[in-house]
């Protein structure tokens, strides 16, 4: 990442007035997106991610704060004078123009020479594998092809950043997965900053360099996909990204950076905590379902976390089998067991089981 960010938001916020009531769509936001970065804004609908992107594009004027593109203040610059381009959710191709004319639109506005336009459009159509489709009109193309035209139309201008608003939302699953790989390849090929808005956590995790998880107009957590998945900062992030088991209770003892939460006899949850956590402090612990081992026999070694419970549900998913276990303390825990070795289910509903996982797979939420 260069020292100067491609996009920088400084205290940017947006209020809407709906029926005389002020709604905080985006709360004051500080954000720096690096050059060449694949950055995702992830969150449920209404979290402010699209509004944030539209403020970067120039379609919404921030109520306050400053937007910088490559260090230049563009807060009050209209969209046609901003060096960013957007891929719209519904593609928004020009229905009266051919593929070629759609892709050439931006370059023509910039008064690029005809021959140069022809060369660059041809190159870009090759990158998105649409060579030979120049004369087609958008209506004569499939959703996936229209998606590529929208991408080419934006990328051909060589913008400082490409903004993508749920670009794969309208495609079916197979095509979506294919386009995810393709988008990532294209991004590497052109080396342009991508800002990607999505509500699909899987999409964000597989493609992004960094993710900002948003909720109710603010960023809940900002980090790499691994950080966000392994170390959710808030309860919301833990629940929104994948499946998470949440356990809470006061820290019993704290020893050598490991806090122990005790439940019933023989039950304990170990969690690494930073300095400053004292016995008696309330803790909230997140454990991912695939980290937990499930067994019918009492574990021999007692090095990690142990909980007991009764299986209430078993669902076969092909690559894994998912168990729901009600613990003695009354919490419902989900356990994913990879179907790598076991041809048979580990347990059936009603079975008493032991859940074990090592200390480093527990993560304390909201403790710094």
């Amino acid at each position, binding site marked *: 990442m260069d020292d100067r960010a491609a996009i920088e938001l400084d205290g940017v916020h947006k209020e809407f007035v709906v029926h005389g009531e002020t709604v905080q769509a985006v709360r004051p936001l500080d954000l720096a997106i690096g050059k060449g970065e694949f950055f995702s804004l992830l969150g449920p609908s209404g979290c402010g991610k699209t509004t944030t992107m539209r403020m970067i594009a120039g*379609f919404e004027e921030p109520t306050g704060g400053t937007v910088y593109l490559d260090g230049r203040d563009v807060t009050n610059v209209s969209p046609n004078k901003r060096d960013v381009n957007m891929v719209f959710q519904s593609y928004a191709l020009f229905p009266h123009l051919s593929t070629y004319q759609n892709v050439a639109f931006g370059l023509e506005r910039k008064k690029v020479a005809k021959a140069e336009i022809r060369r660059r459009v041809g190159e870009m159509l090759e990158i998105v594998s649409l060579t030979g489709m120049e004369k087609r009109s958008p209506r004569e193309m499939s959703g996936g092809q229209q998606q590529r035209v929208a991408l080419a139309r934006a990328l051909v201008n060589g913008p400082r950043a490409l903004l993508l608003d749920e670009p794969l939302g309208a495609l079916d699953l197979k095509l979506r997965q294919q386009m995810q790989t393709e988008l990532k390849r294209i991004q590497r090929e052109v080396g342009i900053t991508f800002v990607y808005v999505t509500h699909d956590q899987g999409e964000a995790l597989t493609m992004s360099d960094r993710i900002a998880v948003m909720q109710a107009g603010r960023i809940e957590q900002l980090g790499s996909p691994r950080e966000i998945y392994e170390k959710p900062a808030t309860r919301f992030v833990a629940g929104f990204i994948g499946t998470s088991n949440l356990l809470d209770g006061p820290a019993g003892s704290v020893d050598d950076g490991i806090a122990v939460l005790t439940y019933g006899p023989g039950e304990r949850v170990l969690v690494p905590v930073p300095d400053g956590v004292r016995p008696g402090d309330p803790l909230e612990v997140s454990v991912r379902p695939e980290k937990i081992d499930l067994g019918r026999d009492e574990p021999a070694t007692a090095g990690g976390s142990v909980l007991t419970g009764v299986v209430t549900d078993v669902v076969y998913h092909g690559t894994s089998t998912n168990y729901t276990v009600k613990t003695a303390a009354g919490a419902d825990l989900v356990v994913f067991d990879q179907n790598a070795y076991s041809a048979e289910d580990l347990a059936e509903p009603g079975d008493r089981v032991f859940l074990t996982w090592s200390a480093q797979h527990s993560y304390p939420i909201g403790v710094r």
Partner: protein
Amino acid sequence: MLRRRLAPYLLVLPGGLWLLLFFVVPMVTMLSLSLQQGDVVTGYVFTGHWQTYVDAVVNYRTQLVRSLIYGGITTVVLIVLAFPVAYWIAFYGGRRKATYLFLLLLPFFVSFVLRTISWRQILTDEGILLGPLKDAGLLHQEFHVLGTPVAVIGGLVYNFLPFMVLPVYVALERIDPRVVEAARDLYADPATTFRKVIFPLALPGVFAGVLMTFVPASSDYVNSAVLGSSSTTMIGQVIQSQYLTSSNYPTASALSFTLMAVLLIGVFAYARALGTEDVMKVAAR
């Protein structure tokens, strides 16, 4: 099986009969009438006298050409006036779009002739509009509006406004606002966005609006009769007086047919020039 094959024909039957009775029969009657000779007292006889057409066109070419010019000017003025109205309702009407469209149509619940007559009251030399301006010395005492082409074309524009606004509105309403944003995103300023994206996408509506206004405006006879003078006589008035005053049915019929032919040729040439195929392609989106 047989019933299924007959169904489309049965469905088309009422409409077909209606057209046969009220469109084809009068047309054939009128065509025959235009080729007859005689007078009301002695009766008309079919003689295949095509000379009537030549005479009618030669005698009334001034009114014929004037009608097409008035119709053309009316249509152009309508496009210029209706586009912003339709644009505003389509893009800024919000939840009140239906209300604005209703307001636009409201005056048209009053009879066509009555509305035109009330315009005469408004535009009369000492009326509510010109009177105060003349008294204030802002206008010359001799200044008229009534009886001039301006009054006639103004009346035509007023009376046909909704027929241009509605189709243009429908075309604009169907434009995805994201497409307009995409143009802005791709470095088009507002004027270029309008020229390159909004207007081309609204063309099917303009096309329909032109058809719905140019044809009836060119053959209108009420506006010129009520708001005009002898120097603004349109072909519709000539046809009317030939029928009802002079009882010269052959000439009236010949003029009607000539007008129809001219308008049809005009419309087809227009469709050709604009490239109906492209227009229809966009319309079929």
